[in-house]
């Protein structure tokens, strides 16, 4: 009884339990509303498909994962410095920020074909789409984080003869880390979507390619299988960043009670 409770409330069981519940609910909805298989396949059909295509799905996950991680890495490596420039200088802000914002409301699926034309059918254009989707949240949140540094803190740094670059690395960046991590969580899931969109447009591998092919074949179970795999990849990456966050900023208010709980 106590054991059952413990198992049920453990951190790892909960998401699994959740998945089971979702699958059951899905099945029920399909049965109750008599949703035909040409609209939404049954969980059974999907599980069947996943089991059958297991190795193919796993194999095709890899290129998608690479593009995602590449795009995400670029998002952070380029997004944070951009945010730094924007936060540091109102002049740069007034020129760079609108440009960044302009670029955001464009559906990437509409311009992705151009990347294929310019950069070919390799990994790069997909990384680029993943980057374009992923970097904006990083920029916005990081700017917010940088700008919310209290004057006292920057005063302290100045009185220590700190250069702007040093102040950035020792004060602003750590201060903004909670915001940056929050944005990274958004960014990585968007990077997954970006990678897939990139694959839609021009690729002969990856889950986006699988989706596109399944779509043409009207293979609903395969479409949903690919979507399930994508969700899992996204969720795992999200969890990875969440764990990284706990390690990187144990000092933050959101983690205090967990890591150093009160007796």
């Amino acid at each position: 009884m106590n054991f059952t409770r413990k198992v049920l409330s453990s951190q790892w069981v909960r998401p699994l339990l959740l998945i089971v519940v979702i699958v059951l609910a899905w099945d029920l909805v399909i049965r109750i509303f008599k949703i035909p298989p040409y609209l939404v396949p049954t969980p059974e059909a999907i599980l069947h498909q996943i089991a059958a295509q297991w190795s193919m799905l796993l194999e095709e996950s890899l290129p998608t994962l690479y593009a995602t991680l590449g795009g995400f890495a670029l998002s952070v490596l380029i997004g944070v410095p951009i945010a730094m420039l924007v936060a540091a200088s109102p002049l740069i802000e007034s020129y760079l920020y609108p440009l960044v914002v302009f670029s955001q409301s464009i559906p990437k699926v509409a311009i992705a074909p151009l990347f294929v034309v310019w950069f070919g059918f390799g990994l790069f254009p997909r990384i680029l789409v993943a980057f374009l989707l992923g970097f904006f949240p990083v920029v916005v949140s990081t700017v917010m984080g940088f700008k919310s540094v209290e004057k006292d803190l920057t005063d302290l740094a100045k009185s220590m003869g700190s250069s702007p670059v040093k102040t950035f690395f020792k004060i602003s960046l750590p201060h903004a880390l909670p915001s940056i991590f929050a944005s990274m969580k958004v960014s990585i899931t968007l990077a997954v979507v970006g990678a897939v969109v990139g694959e839609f447009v021009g690729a002969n591998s990856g889950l986006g390619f699988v989706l596109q092919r399944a779509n043409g074949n009207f293979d609903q179970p395969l479409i949903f299988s690919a979507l399930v795999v994508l969700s899992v990849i996204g969720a795992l990456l999200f969890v990875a960043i969440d764990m990284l966050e706990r390690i990187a900023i144990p000092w933050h208010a959101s983690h205090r009670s967990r890591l150093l709980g009160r007796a």
Partner: protein
Amino acid sequence: KDSLTLMLNYTVNGAVAPFYLGKVKGYYDAEGIDLKLMEGHGSGPTVQAVATHNVDIGYADFSTMVKVAAMGAPVKAIGVLMQENPTSVVGLADKNIKTPQDIKGKTVAVAPGDASSQLWTMFMNKVGLKDSDFKTITGNPQTTINAVITGQADLLVGFATIPLISVEQATKKPARAILFADYNVNVATLSIIARDDMIKDHADLLKRFMRATAKSVNDSEKDPAAAVDALLKTLPAAGSRDTMIRTLQATIPFYRTPETEKAPIFHVSAKNIDDSVAAIVQYSKLDPSANVPAKYYTGAFVP
């Protein structure tokens, strides 16, 4: 007057101008039909929309419809407008690719999964090409066109209509197509689709619709420019007139196969239907029990 909503296979282009011509000329009105035309977003969604009562009838690819119907969607084709499939390999004329054997060693752009990619497999089997004979690059239809224009690929697999015209217009050079149908690889394509209950309960309405449509298509065959003008009258911003006329002109030859060359519009041969269904079942890896042509086509409404 009965109102009827027809969902097209895609956004408007020259190929669907006949429907607009019929509207503008009042052919549908004359049959007591208030026809609403709705642009579409691919054949699949159109078939789904018909199956789920979101629209009354649709204009969609026959093979896509067969696949959806095989999964239980209660739909049928009631008229096959494009009996010959325009899928080809398209390339610039100066690449001098004239026969299937010329494809060897070239780069071919394919949109994976879509209807033309399956015909491509049939074609390869028919003419004895192997995957290893050429290089393949894949992407969405837009990308395949771009690839040929930019030289990333020598050929694309697609309709000998819009992609071909797009390539010619962009490069200002003549393009050429190797038509699969010329090698006896043919699957009926764009058709009028209706739901089973509609067929049962509103047979008369559908008959009238088909009559008016046949008239519209006949007129368009004679004067494609007039059809496009009718379209542009309804939707002034739909696109360039020249391009649309060229598209319609390129489409018209596919209304009939050599077998039905003399037959009136929509009069498809039973063999065409049987062969098409058999090919779809085989190449889409459908259950063999799905190979029942009568499930997918009824000739009862052909005028």
